[in-house]
């Protein structure tokens, strides 16, 4: 019961975190499904003939083209007021002079001189106002989202239908110059391109001057149909100096000259578009949704008269994505499939001399095409995803049907009145605006309430972990009430929510349901803490974490709020880990435990036992620290570089062996990899043998003896095949490809069966009495009745254990050199950690297979490093019997730091392009067909391998100090045979150390300690995810939010989920071993009684 409640409590706390993460994510990550459908020239967007005048014209798709060429000048962060004409004739007011006002004089001049040729708009953009998201919107006509479900994370390339795609398939030559973001978005789309790095935002001129070098020559050469120039200077000036800086005036004047130069060179069939992708705040930043950020300038000009009217006094406000359908129809290409923008009707009026009726008809046709396309998109989208509101969708559909019947009637009787046309235009516009509003409603809004709510739940859950971990080891910890009452409260919360839903008739949102349930139980807990704890206890219990460790944790958390530190985390984590290690060593020295003079004496409560001498003397801990630093540094050689740091070079050892050209190099590396496998295997076996866990005839031990080498062999063979597959002779190809399918699966199968065996018989203990077995003797305990209750058993077990030792010693004295003897109880001392280490080794092999071959060296380092760290930590932890057992905070922090460090040193980075997709093809070289969960599982296991291993291995932090007890005052000498070993031990030890059996002596404390360990681990992970969430929340308009903070949050969140599951598994394994040990003892007692 107690075991189950420990696990259930941890699972419940994890659930609270999950609820918080889910709520935050639903408010922060804008999601929508990305459709890959394409509009095609030959296929009209809806039933009915193509409109007015488009048939039979060459180069016309849905509509006859108005322009054959276009120049698109994208001035990054060109806010609307930067381009706004300055009217000096306002009476009584002198014009305000700000560096960014009125610097684009050429626009003003054109607007005054050629009012029918040019128009300035204020375009409203949809947040997030970051360049990449805006470029996506500006070419697809859709809303930008961070996660486009269904897109390929490996690259930023746009998979949706877009203008560039349509232009290339229409055979237009696109020349691009400027920001290299376009290179990622549209790989290979340009007939000629001059990319300049957008990375350095402090550099105002490189990109712009680079463009200017090529712009006019390209224009004059005439080898283009579409010319795109993306200037970054204004944006960078904003980031560096802000808009209120003289530098901004210079930059804008330069842009003015550029526009002037372009206007002079324009020919009649060419349209000039000058646009800003977004605005900027007062400080020059962008990314969020404030008024200044979402207002951008849009200026259209053509040497040919475009507009039938003169510009209005105040520029018209339009959504920025209106440009997409407008440009498409003006250029005579299909509107991109997913566009939800609305065409700018004025551009289709046909110039200043056109008939009003013909002009209105042209506008209506353009709008109708646009509406058909949007309607087609809506039905395709709602068939694929359910996130649009059904009711609104139906209303819109009705509106569209009505408008289209009106339109068709008008086409049949063209002599209809002009007013009918005007109403039709109004209807179509209403439909388009309604569709757009509906999409925005469901796709593109940060929900601040949800984000704040999620962060609050996360914070409260961290708080809970902190308190409960303090509380867990206190004697009167109410396991049951703590578990059941919060569950009841969470149920109450869920029921309340469901009740609210039935009242308001809204759709059931599982995220909100979970959040309400979590809030319910958290409220109960907080209230309980407030009443029961806040008043009685001093403040020091509020912060149980020791100061220096708290400082380390705070530094780590603060680092999540700086994009530079998130990018540099791969280097920062080993630094912090090294500091923590050196701090631990220094602390040991400071307290006199490092060097011999002061001997620490510990007294045990049981009177019969002698005092335990200090476990570590000499400079042992110092060497552990140095070894740890060395391992950390070596593991750092396997880092991958984030894209953001051009100066950094990724480790060349991350590529698979197959990519090595030289045969000798390949063989050497292969040898090293296999060597590391063998070393890992030998190390684990030596360790198990050292603690005597290899002697038992149990199936799990047999598996360790024979199955592990087999797995290593399989892995090595798979590597050999994978690295040399191309060199295999043709007739062996089938065999090789078959083996590369079978081998990884066989290794995984072996690992799984090994784990099953371990779970089935986890106690690797050899019950083997010597000659003349003493089973007839009775147990030396006032024991009555069968061991039914747990308490009886708890009382009896240590006695049996001691009894067996005594008996063993007695027999040793009698039969000194007669028969080889082994003692069962000796192996009991490490029964928990032996199972843990075996399980970890079994887990490692499949994970190893998913990585590149040379990462096996890192895995070896990982084992070595955690071994050293556990020893170092054990040096600082005194054994307190009979409890309470605690794992100090520094141990948990160091363990999580090491997990993060291993994440980086296995060649990962928390960004999507760095995900190692090849892991999905291990064992499945042909791919997976349509199933998605298996490749996702494989890639996930590859990415979060370190999280999983360290979380599963977390209970070792509790077990290791007990294990180190056996190392006594003198180092134990390894001896080849049983007899010698037994003799040496009987000589040098008065009493066999109890080791992990101490934990069994106090099972209540043991379970409380496991619970506390789990809570502490969840707390340290929880504050990390909380910090990530807060960073993403607070910095949501930061330049790097979609590049750095959001991916970091996602990786951290998934890592948290993996870690919490791993933690539960690890603790469950310890519990399983515990149960098995209990039943083993029970059997033994029964056997003794007979």
């Amino acid at each position: 019961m107690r075991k189950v409640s420990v696990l259930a409590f941890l699972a419940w706390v994890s659930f609270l975190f999950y609820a918080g993460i889910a709520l935050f994510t639903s408010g922060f990550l804008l999601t929508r499904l990305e459709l890959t459908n394409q509009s095609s020239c030959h296929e009209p967007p809806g039933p009915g003939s193509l409109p007015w005048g488009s048939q039979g014209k060459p180069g016309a798709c849905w509509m006859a083209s108005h322009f054959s060429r276009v120049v698109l000048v994208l001035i990054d962060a060109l806010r609307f007021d930067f381009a706004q004409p300055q009217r000096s004739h306002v009476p009584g007011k002198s014009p305000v002079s700000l560096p960014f006002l009125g610097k684009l004089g050429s626009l003003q001049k054109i607007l005054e001189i050629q009012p029918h040729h040019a128009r300035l708009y204020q375009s409203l953009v949809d947040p997030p106002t970051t360049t990449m998201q805006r470029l996506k919107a500006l070419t697809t006509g859709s809303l930008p989202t961070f996660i486009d479900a269904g897109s390929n994370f490996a690259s930023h390339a746009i998979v949706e239908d877009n203008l560039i795609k349509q232009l290339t398939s229409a055979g237009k030559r696109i020349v691009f110059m400027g920001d290299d973001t376009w290179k990622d978005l549209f790989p290979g789309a340009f007939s000629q391109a001059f990319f300049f790095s957008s990375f350095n935002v402090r550099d105002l001129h490189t990109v712009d001057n680079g463009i200017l070098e090529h712009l006019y020559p390209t224009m004059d050469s005439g080898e283009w149909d579409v010319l795109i120039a993306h200037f970054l200077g204004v944006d960078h000036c904003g980031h560096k100096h802000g808009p209120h800086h003289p530098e901004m005036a210079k930059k804008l004047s330069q842009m003015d000259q550029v526009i002037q130069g372009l206007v002079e060179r324009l020919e009649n069939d060419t349209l000039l578009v000058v646009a800003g992708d977004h605005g900027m705040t007062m400080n020059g930043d962008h990314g969020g949704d404030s008024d200044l950020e979402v207002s951008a300038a849009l200026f259209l000009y053509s040497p040919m008269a475009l507009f039938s009217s003169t510009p209005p006094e105040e520029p018209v406000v339009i959504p920025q994505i209106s440009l997409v359908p407008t440009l498409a129809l003006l250029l005579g290409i299909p509107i991109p499939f997913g566009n939800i923008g609305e065409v700018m009707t004025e551009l289709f009026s046909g110039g200043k001399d056109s008939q009003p009726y013909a002009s209105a008809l042209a506008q209506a046709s353009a709008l109708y095409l646009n509406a058909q396309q949007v309607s087609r998109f809506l039905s395709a989208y709602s068939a694929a995803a359910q996130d649009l509101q059904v009711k609104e969708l139906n209303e819109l559909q009705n509106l569209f049907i009505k408008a289209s019947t009106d339109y068709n009637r008008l086409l049949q009787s063209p002599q209809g009145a002009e007013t009918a046309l005007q109403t039709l235009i109004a209807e179509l516009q209403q439909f388009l605006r309604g569709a757009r509003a509906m999409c925005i409603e469901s796709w593109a809004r940060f929900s601040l309430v949800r984000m704040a709510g999620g962060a609050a739940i996360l914070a409260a859950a961290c708080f809970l972990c902190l308190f409960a971990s303090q509380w867990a080891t206190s004697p009167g910890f109410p396991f049951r009430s703590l578990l059941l009452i919060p569950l009841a409260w969470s149920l109450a919360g869920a029921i309340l929510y469901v009740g609210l839903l039935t009242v308001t008739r809204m759709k059931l949102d599982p995220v909100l349901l979970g959040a309400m349930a979590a809030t319910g139980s958290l409220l109960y807990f907080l209230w309980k803490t407030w009443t029961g704890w806040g008043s009685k206890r001093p403040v020091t219990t509020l912060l149980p974490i020791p100061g220096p460790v708290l400082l380390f944790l705070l530094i780590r958390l603060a680092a999540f709020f700086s994009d530079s530190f998130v990018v540099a985390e791969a280097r920062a984590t080993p630094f912090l880990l090294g500091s923590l290690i050196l701090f631990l060593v220094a602390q040991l020295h400071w307290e006199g435990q490092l060097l011999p003079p002061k001997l620490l004496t510990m007294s045990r409560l049981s009177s019969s036992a002698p005092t335990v001498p200090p476990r570590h003397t000499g400079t042992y801990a110092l060497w552990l620290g140095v070894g740890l630093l060395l391992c950390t540094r070596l593991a750092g050689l396997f880092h991958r570089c984030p894209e953001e740091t051009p100066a950094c070079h990724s480790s060349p050892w991350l590529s698979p062996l197959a990519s090595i050209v030289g045969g000798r190099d390949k063989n050497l590396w292969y040898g090293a990899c296999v060597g590391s496998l063998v070393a890992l295997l030998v190390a684990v076996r030596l360790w198990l043998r050292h603690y005597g866990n290899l002697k038992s005839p149990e199936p799990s031990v047999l598996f360790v003896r024979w199955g592990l080498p087999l797995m290593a062999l399989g892995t090595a063979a798979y590597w050999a095949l994978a690295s040399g597959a191309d060199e295999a002779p043709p007739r062996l190809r089938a065999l090789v490809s078959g083996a590369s399918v079978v081998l990884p699966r066989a290794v995984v199968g072996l690992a799984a069966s090994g784990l099953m065996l371990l779970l089935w018989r986890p106690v690797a203990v050899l019950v083997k009495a010597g000659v003349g077995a003493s089973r007839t003797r009775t147990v030396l305990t006032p024991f009555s009745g069968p061991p039914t209750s747990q308490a009886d058993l708890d009382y009896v077990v240590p006695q049996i254990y001691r009894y067996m030792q005594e008996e063993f010693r007695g027999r040793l004295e009698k039969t000194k050199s007669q028969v080889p003897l082994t003692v069962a109880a000796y192996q009991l001392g490490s029964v928990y950690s032996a199972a843990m280490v075996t399980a970890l080794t079994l887990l490692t092999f499949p994970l190893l297979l998913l990585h590149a071959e040379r990462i096996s060296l890192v895995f070896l380092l990982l084992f070595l490093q955690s071994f050293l760290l556990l020893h170092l930590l054990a040096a600082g932890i005194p054994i307190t019997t009979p409890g309470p057992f605690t794992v100090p905070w520094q141990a948990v922090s160091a363990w999580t730091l090491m997990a993060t460090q291993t994440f980086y040193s296995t060649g990962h980075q928390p960004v999507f392009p760095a995900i190692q997709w090849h892991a999905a093809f291990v064992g499945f070289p042909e791919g997976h067909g349509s199933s998605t969960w298996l490749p996702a599982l494989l890639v996930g296991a590859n990415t979060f391998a370190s999280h999983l291993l360290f979380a599963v291995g977390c209970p070792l932090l509790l077990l290791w100090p007990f294990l180190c007890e056996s190392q006594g005052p003198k180092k134990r000498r390894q001896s080849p045979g049983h007899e010698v070993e037994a003799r040496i031990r009987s000589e040098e030890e008065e009493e066999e150390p109890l080791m992990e059996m101490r934990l069994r002596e106090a099972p209540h404390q043991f379970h409380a300690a496991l619970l506390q360990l789990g809570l502490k681990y969840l707390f340290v992970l929880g504050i990390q995810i909380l910090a990530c969430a807060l960073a993403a929340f607070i910095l949501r308009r930061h330049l790097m939010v979609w590049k750095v903070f959001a991916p970091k949050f996602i990786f951290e969140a998934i890592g948290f989920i993996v870690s919490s599951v791993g933690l539960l598994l690890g603790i469950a394994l310890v519990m399983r071993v515990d149960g098995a040990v209990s039943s083993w003892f029970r059997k033994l007692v029964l056997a003794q009684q007979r």
Partner: protein
Amino acid sequence: MKDSDIKKLFYMHLLCIFSIILSTFIPSFFLENFSVLETHLLWLCICSVSVTAINLLLYFVVKPNVSSKRSSLSYKVARFLKCCIYFLISCLFLHVIFVLYGAPLLELVLETFSFAVILSTFTVVPCLCLLGPNLKAWLRVFSKNGVNSIWENSLQITTISSFVGAWLGAFPIPLDWERPWQVWPISCTLGATFGYVAGLFISPLWIYWNRKQLTYKNN
């Protein structure tokens, strides 16, 4: 413990601080283009030499610890040589530690080593002056309840603050401010210097404030 001792300590520390300030400003009168950031290595050398010199000078003038009984020339020379070797070893040791901490292994070796030199100037040289080449004494001073005099106490404080300063100096390196002082190892050397100066300031004050609680075995 007398107040005069604390006063003496304070003046000594002021002199040390003064020597660092001088080493920053004086050379610019003699050398062209001298600045802390641009000719950083040169500054490091000058600073290291001047701090060592002032430490030795103060040691010979003040003689805080009881002078050893043997005073033959050969003994002094041997002791001096031993000190030099200790200093060299400490520089190498610090260099290794920096590399283990993530400093580049093959590039910027000279820079890393000069950082090791300046840090051991701030930490090991005072130790050598005060305690001599005696590792046991060093270890004693840097453990709980191990200090025997205000000199050792101030040594403890300045050494720890130099190390902490150097450690904190590593933090600005990843930031994208692109300042000249963010380059390895300039921020760390500056951090160590500031830490040392802060330690020099703090230790007399701290000892003064805690003079009631401080009890040493000697006095």
